[in-house]
């Protein structure tokens, strides 16, 4: 695979995180290359969501490093992550129901214009709505109005808004936590198409999913977490669902078990 010749765009090294008495992650390494989709799988409590939240700056690891584009970086809050180009779509979507689609797409990154020059800056509603309209059109998202309050949208529409928000900001790495869990067949297909398009643009995509069919459909590599440790790294094209399930549950199987996968080392 071409990935071996390229450097990972994002690398996490020796990440550990404890919540009280629970060791959520122990010495976990993680990497994603530009132009690839990594499926991050594991049973409930394996540490997938925790790892994603550490990558995106919502949590701080107890120990470990973020290495982005070859340089070690400090990511201590969500803004650090988005400044680097790491965007996340959380499982609960992190949308504000009382705000409309435009406001949610621009949440935290609102465009302002000088109203009273030098003194007051107001929200550039027209500019934001114009660009939001374009994004929504290009991503083929069906919503009644871009000014609808998000609370009035269906689950699939809300998911689409959350994904749009992740891709409209010059992102380099996009993390999707259970993106198809609440979606119907057509919307799942659209999200997977979107993921493939993002891969073609050279983004590094990480997809957490319980749905192995989706993971096999869309990913290039599969990283398995088990009980807070990296249990296996598998090449999607050479493995099969049984091997993945074995790694998730801890049964013995052929390929490498704990630590790094030698075949995919750079």
């Amino acid at each position, binding site marked *: 695979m071409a990935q071996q010749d390229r450097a990972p765009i994002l690398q996490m090294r020796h990440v550990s995180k404890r919540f009280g008495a629970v060791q959520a992650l122990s010495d976990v390494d993680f990497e994603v290359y530009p132009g690839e989709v990594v499926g991050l799988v594991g049973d409930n409590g394996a540490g997938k969501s925790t790892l994603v939240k550490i990558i995106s700056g919502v949590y701080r690891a107890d120990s470990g490093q973020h290495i982005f584009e070859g340089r070690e970086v400090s990511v201590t809050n969500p803004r650090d992550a988005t400044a680097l180009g790491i965007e996340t779509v959380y499982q609960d979507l992190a949308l*504000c129901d009382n*705000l409309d689609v435009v406001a949610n797409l621009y949440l935290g990154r*609102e465009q302002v214009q000088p109203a009273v020059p030098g003194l007051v800056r107001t929200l550039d509603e027209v*500019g934001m709505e114009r660009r939001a309209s*374009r994004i929504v059109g290009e991503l083929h998202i069906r919503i009644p109005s871009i000014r*609808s309050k998000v609370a*009035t*949208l269906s689950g699939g529409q809300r998911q689409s808004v959350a994904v749009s928000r992740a891709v409209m900001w010059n992102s380099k790495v996009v993390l999707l936590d259970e993106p198809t869990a609440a979606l119907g067949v057509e919307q799942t297909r659209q999200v997977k198409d979107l993921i493939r398009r993002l891969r073609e*643009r050279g983004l590094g995509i990480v997809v957490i999913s319980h749905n192995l069919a989706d993971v096999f459909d869309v990913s290039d590599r599969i990283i398995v977490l088990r009980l807070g440790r990296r249990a296996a790294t598998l090449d999607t094209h050479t493995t099969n669902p049984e091997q993945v399930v074995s790694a998730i549950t801890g049964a013995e199987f052929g390929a490498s078990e704990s630590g790094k996968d030698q075949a995919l080392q750079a």
Partner: protein
Amino acid sequence: MKNIEQTTARPESAQSREESSASARSQPSRIARAWAQLDVGSLTVVFGLVVIAVVFQIANHNFLSPLNLANLMVQISAVGAISVGVVLVLLIGEIDLSVGAVSGFCASVMAVLSIKAHQPALVAVGVGVLIGAAIGLLQGFWFVKLHVPAFIVTLAGSLGWFGAQLYVLGSTGTLNMTDPLIVGIANARLPVILGWLLGIIFVGVNAYAVLLERRQRVRSGLPVQPLGIALGQVAIVGAGVFLAIGIMNVDRSPAGFAPVRGVPSAVLIFIAFIVLFDFITRRTRFGRYVFAVGGNAEAARRAGINVNQIRMIVFVLASTLAACGGILAGSRLLAVNQSSGSGDVLLNAIAAAVIGGTSLFGGRGSTWSALLGALVIGSISNGMDLLALSSSIKFMVTGAVLLLAVTLDAYARSRREASGRS
């Protein structure tokens, strides 16, 4: 890394243009959308206000007289100013139970500085307002950094600051405000010309903003309301503003007395607070963050918004506005005493915000609800005073109105959300 819109624009542009025009055609007509967005809850309250006005006018022909209406506006200004602060706290999904006590305590500080320490008005009022801000900082800190629920912190505040008020006033009974500047805060009147001028400026700025935004939207290809509706909105606002100013500019003194005309300064200050904070909440980034924190604080945090900072600032603003309200009340009544800020000040401030349409659960509302709610509560109180009804009836009616207003608003909201989904 190219922005996604640039790289997908070329091959799919024809298709996406076709699809977006298709979806525009399937959108409900522009008039229907404007209609659906009407704030049915608030309109119901306005209708209720009209009913109240008609009922009281029939019962006592003086209710809608210029003198009574001007008095009504002045009577609601102090609690109304406090209510603006309550709106801000409700918007972030919290509550501040100390606003009554803070208003009384800061008014007492002002009174003691002015009357006992013989300080100039600027110092007395300035210190009173700053103490309000400091209280907000302290209570905000306790809530944000020490993680004590705002309900508890401000409940403790409502007791503590009331005690501080008694301490500061000491054994004095009532302190009568004699400083002309302080008395003028609530009791001065704008010259008639200035009143009209301010009205023209307000209506003019509003019209300019509405039409400018409309033109920007047309230029950017965004959907707009029909021009008729936009002009209609401007006209309604204009009519309301000029009617109100006209009523206050008419000579309202009883026959045979020296003429009394002009917009009272208390009203001007109250409306100025509403306009200022309406602008801040709806048009600035900070205001957007206030709504975001009230809607989903965790989502706001993940979007990089400093949720703690927003909460601190809001609590400071609420206590500062409470202090301003207290000073307004002290000026209007020409006196500050142990009962300033006590009694139903707190509950009326909260009830006004809620009756006017601000949600108790956060994320929804407007500073204008302070005006609407204060008018409803104030009209009931004022009207019943004219009819010489006892306070017992006043309380029961106000309680019923509060319940009715919130029930209607909840119903209207559930209907709006249901239709939004289809």
